[in-house]
């Protein structure tokens, strides 16, 4: 029911930030997560950051992605 994609916060001004996913940059609103800092990874849904990921969270996601590229 809800698509969300991870993105890195690369700029912020007030509650408006720019988030980047794979070279795609889009404005996102930080009203739900005002504590987010530049450099943080967040999950983006409908133009809003809805969760902050730690480095470990990101690593888990990347390893799930990477796993799909390799076979035994």
């Amino acid at each position, binding site marked *: 029911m809800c698509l969300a994609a991870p993105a890195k916060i690369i700029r912020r001004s007030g509650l408006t930030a720019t988030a980047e996913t794979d070279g795609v940059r889009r404005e996102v609103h930080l009203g739900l997560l005002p504590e987010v800092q530049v450099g943080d990874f967040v999950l983006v849904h409908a133009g809003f950051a809805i*969760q902050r990921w730690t480095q470990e969270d990101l690593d888990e996601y990347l390893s*799930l992605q990477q796993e799909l590229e390799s076979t035994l």
Partner: protein
Amino acid sequence: MTVSPAPSPGLKAQLLEMHQLARQFGRPVKYMEVCGTHTMAAFRSGLRTLLPESISLLSGPGCPVCVTPADFIDQAVALARLQDVVIVTFGDLLRVPGSRSSLERERAGGAEVRVAYSPLDALAWAAQEPQRRFVFLAIGFETTIPAIAVSVLQAAERRLDNVSFLCALKLMPPALAALLRSPALKLDGLLCPGHVSVMIGPEPYAFLAKSHHLPCVVAGFEPGDMVAGVLMLLRQSCGHRAEVEIQYHRSVKPGGLLRARQLWESVFEPSPSRWRGLGWIPESGLKLRPEFSAWDADRLYPETQVPAAVENPACRCGEVLQALVLPGQCPLFASGCTPEEPQGPCMVSSEGTCAAYYRYGRMASGASAAPERA
């Protein structure tokens, strides 16, 4: 030259365990993936073809487009026909048929309908074009509700009086409670929605484990997440446990996102809501609080209120949404009802169960879309 990919090592180990456990368990199990995005991800990743035959995934009511009654579209269509009104909608709603028309058809007939990715786009346009009136079609579950709430608050703060919201926001736990009251539905567990749970946390599913003795796992949307989620369900089934577990730890925290819920509670209050297939469910919807009535399209344009729509009697979306029948058991599926000419909401929404079966599941081998009994 074409190498057929085998599952990756991690996935392969998990699938191996799943197949072993499924054999040990002995009887077929039915798990419901509540969320439409899980339905779509399971098809798109081909996951359903990797699961043991004894595990069926049934799709639940977690597709906002699918459970929104046709009269919501009828009202949006009526709004679109008003002078100077611009409809702003998520792309998901554009092609959804109402009783007689869709927003796509109204746009062809001269109405202005704009597709947005964020509800804040409606505010930006309203500020740029003060002579026109903008109505945002606010549909969605707990994942989307905070974004709508922030947008309403901003409209109020900025005193934007030419933007309003037509709300059909819905809450998942009351719908699950209503769904499980149906004696026809026999389930062995639930794959709980990942992004809804970002907001509400895993706690609201406790009644499913406690009162209904159903294993519950909150899962993410990568193929690896979903395989792990189903495996966790199966381990519970095998161990005769019924607990709420989180697979999607990186996004779902105990307690959810309090700030988001506080924001939405300041803007909305609970209300009864009508769901396609499930009917009226108390406290399963949200309406704008009276102090935001100046941004409530339903109040601003009472002339667009429409009677409850009569749905195509042959369409079985209602039962599909309750996992009582599979899409292939509907007489309209793939003959009268296709993604190009949808008759019911489960076909039009790209995450609808029927659309997923139609687009990805009609395999000649029948591997994933055989008309098994639900």
